[in-house]
């Protein structure tokens, strides 16, 4: 750039009055052409440079000419045709136009991305994967928390004799089950071993059956020698008895449990072998009876709305009532 400054006034001067400067490119070319007796048309016919461009060359008006690399070529060709040395002319030209040496070879870009479909596609994938992850998470939670209860319910329904009212009241059956669950978890905290028997009977139905009688025996006063059931027994003998003479024929005498419901309730009875012999949801005002080998583990949901009669003797369930669920073992 520093080299250009002394030259620029010179350029303007020559552009204005080319003929006065013998050293200027245009003047040199023109002089050489005239000396050879050639016209601009002759030059055009030979070099195919347009007459307009030849005039521009001869008047040093480089703004009318193409980019420097082409203009230099024109000067070279012109000088070669006129048989004069092109080098001094080119040197002059380079001095006049030094800054335009290197053309940009990369296109200047506004860099505005066209991203119509691309981004939405990505979003779609992101949403889809998030949805899948969410689903997987829910399934895992469900798997951990709910699955253990479902076999419980299924077991209950399958082991009971299916009564017409049984299926439709399944959702209600879940409620006491849940209560039972929460009650069971509370109990160990209170230091009682009572919670264990129902858990075991549920999960390890047959395996634990032998150990069961002892477990409640140590923990609960309601064992055969204890007086607990006995005071309840003489209270009422009103319940109508359905006879079961056949039961005596088996090795262990069958005992009869009768249940009278004043409110909707749920009952589960497990016999000596750990088999659930009774599991039903009962409507208010109904009653039911079942026979089984003692000890019978009876669980009654909504205990306030039910009455338990064992071998025709009403049983006082109040001491065994926890959160409106009664768990009692009848010997």
């Amino acid at each position, binding site marked *: 750039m520093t080299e250009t400054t002394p030259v620029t006034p010179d350029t303007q001067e020559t552009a204005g009055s080319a003929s006065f400067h013998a050293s200027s490119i245009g003047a040199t070319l023109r002089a050489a052409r005239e000396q050879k007796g050639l016209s601009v048309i002759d030059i055009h016919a030979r*070099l195919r440079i*347009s007459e307009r461009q030849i005039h521009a060359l001869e008047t040093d008006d480089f703004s009318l000419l*193409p980019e420097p*690399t*082409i203009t230099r*070529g*024109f000067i070279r060709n012109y000088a070669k045709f006129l048989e004069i040395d092109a080098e001094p002319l080119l040197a002059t030209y380079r001095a006049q136009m030094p800054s335009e040496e290197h*053309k940009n*070879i990369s*296109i200047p870009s506004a860099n505005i991305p066209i991203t119509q479909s691309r981004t939405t596609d990505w979003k779609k994938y992101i949403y889809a994967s998030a949805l899948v992850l969410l689903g997987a998470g829910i399934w895992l939670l469900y798997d951990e928390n709910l699955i253990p209860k479902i076999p419980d319910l299924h077991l209950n329904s399958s082991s009971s004799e299916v009564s017409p009212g049984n299926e439709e009241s399944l959702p209600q059956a879940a409620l006491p089950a849940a209560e039972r669950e929460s009650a069971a978890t509370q109990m160990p905290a209170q230091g009682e071993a009572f919670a264990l028997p129902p858990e075991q009977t549920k999960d390890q139905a047959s395996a634990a059956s032998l150990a069961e009688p002892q477990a409640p025996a140590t923990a609960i006063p309601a064992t055969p020698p204890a007086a607990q059931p006995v005071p309840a027994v003489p209270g009422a003998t009103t319940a109508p008895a359905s006879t079961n003479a056949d039961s005596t024929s088996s090795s262990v005498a069958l005992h009869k449990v009768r249940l009278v419901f004043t409110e909707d309730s749920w009952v589960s009875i497990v016999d000596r072998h750990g088999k659930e012999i009774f599991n039903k949801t009962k409507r208010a005002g109904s009653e039911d009876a079942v026979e089984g080998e003692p000890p019978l583990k009876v669980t009654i949901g909504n205990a306030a709305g039910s009455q338990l009669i064992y071998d025709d003797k009403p049983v006082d369930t109040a001491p065994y009532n926890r959160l409106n669920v009664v768990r009692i073992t009848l010997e």
Partner: protein
Amino acid sequence: MFGLLNSYFSNDLAIDLGTANTLIYVRGRGIVLDEPSVVAIRQEGGPAGKKTMLAVGLEAKRMLGRAPANITAIRPMKDGVIADFTITEQMLKYFIRKIHESRLFSPNPRIIICVPVGSTQVERRAIRESAIGAGARQVYLIEEPMAAAIGADMPVAEATGSMVVDIGGGTTEVGVISLGGIVYAKSERVGGDKFDQAIIDYIRRNYGMQISEPTAELIKKKIGSAFPGSEVLEMEVTGRNLAEGLPRKFTISSNEILEALTEPLNSIVGAVKSALEQTPPELGADIAEKGMVLTGGGALLRDLDRLLVEETGLPVIVAEDPLTCVARGSGRALEEMDKLGNVFASE
């Protein structure tokens, strides 16, 4: 991390792997190597013996046509593409080592390499593979008309048409370039080699003399011309008389050489004309204004520009230093590699 280390230890290269000459441009240093693409191979111990490279480049070129039976001087490039893959790879490896001489670590450069516009996928792949085989970390291909136009300092990135005719050793590439891309390109497998071959054939036919390729090249450079000029040049040539089988001297004139070159020159003119026919009119107007630029060694053939002026009616300019245009153009692409994307050719 590793790439950074690599780029520190090895300079990026731009290679004009030509049929006649190989030029290597090193980033930041310019053209550092310009050697003929010739390899001399010595066969040791009979036809089944080990082969070794005796010489590469200028030394090997001196052996062309002068070697004994167990030495063969090979030109591994033919018609702008690889004719002998292994030798090309070895030659490239040798050249790359040569320019990295003083380095402690083995060079592992990024390489821009020129390919003819008319080369097939297989030929391009071969060129790429040979560069990788010679130790390139990454290979970029650039089409020769593009490199030539950049090297001739034409406004390739502007919205104006530029026409370049690159006459190399093996191929003639005609390209019309605008907005950083090739609008039209045509590659004709005619070049300096075909000129030499045409001279050899002409002399055998008309004089009954056999001359070698180097002699033909010398004739072309000294008195060859593409257009009948005012003065007739003459040259004394030595060849082998086919009838007698003895070396004989004879004199040949530039007009005869012009006659010999008619056929290859016509195919160049044909390629240029067909490019002009295929060029969109808007770009054609730009080209009529500026003319076409000749690059490559073929542009040095006397009055070739004159021939094209007469044939096309357009101004024709011979680029400054036409022999190195392609190498300089690829070099510039190399310098601005990180800014460019669309200049490089896909496979």
